């Protein structure tokens, strides 16, 4: 198996711990506050975008890889990183182009697969 050699197992362990820890923060917010899950998603994306803008999140990404990019904070980080890269390349215009450009694949996939999955979904059986 050629691709098995590509996997860095120490990296997976770091990813598991950091990714799990970020989810635990979300779980504590759910259990200890009255926040709805929608608000928690918004908080995570915004926090990721701010930490990404400050350059703090980059360290977590360098350490944990997908453990930091797969949680929604990583989505926010990705948007901010793109906006900064955009400014470097196009000036002020880049602030509007870069973010969504970086996250384009994820947003497009979410819309496309989301619509398809809703079409094929079975209607929920509600227990009386």
């Amino acid at each position, binding site marked *: 198996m050629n691709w098995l050699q590509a996997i860095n197992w120490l*990296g997976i362990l770091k990813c598991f711990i950091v*990714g799990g820890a970020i*989810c635990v923060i979300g779980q504590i917010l759910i259990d200890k506050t009255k926040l709805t899950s929608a608000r928690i998603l*918004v908080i995570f994306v915004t926090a990721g975008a701010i930490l990404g803008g400050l350059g703090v999140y980059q360290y977590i990404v360098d350490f944990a890889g997908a453990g930091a990019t797969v949680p929604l904070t990583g*989505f926010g980080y990705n948007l901010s990183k793109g906006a*900064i890269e955009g400014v470097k390349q196009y000036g002020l215009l880049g*602030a509007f182009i870069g973010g969504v450009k970086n996250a384009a694949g994820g947003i497009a996939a979410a819309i496309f697969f989301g619509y398809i999955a*809703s079409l094929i*979904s079975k209607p929920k059986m509600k227990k009386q």
Partner: protein
Amino acid sequence: MKPLDTQKSYQEYVDKKSPNSPILKNCFNAFWVGGLICSIGQIIMDICKHNSLDIQLSGTVVSIILIGISALLTGLNIFNKVGKFAGAGSLVPITGFANSIVSPAMEYKSEGYVMGVGGKMFTVAGPVLVFGISTSIIVGIIYFIII
């Protein structure tokens, strides 16, 4: 039983009688499910890098695959069972974003395929995009000013 006259003794009584908060168990489940989802992402990423994709494209491939799988699992009513067990473990990763798109869309399917499914998809994902993208634009503008 002695009457509970002070606030403090009442609080102690309530704490003794009420069931232990399941927060530790919830956190444990959130930890390992969330860690597992991220690890699956890391494995996909390693395979992409092995096939000489750059780190940005690898990340995009990871997002697309995880979003596709969780959208499908939500449509088949499997994701909600995982979500009940794992809580934030499946909500906080990008899988939760896909779930938040499909769940309301399924519910409002009866209102039609344009305004029902197409409109309600963004009940939760809309705010996430509004705040995420707006924050990134502000970050970009601040960066432009201080550069």
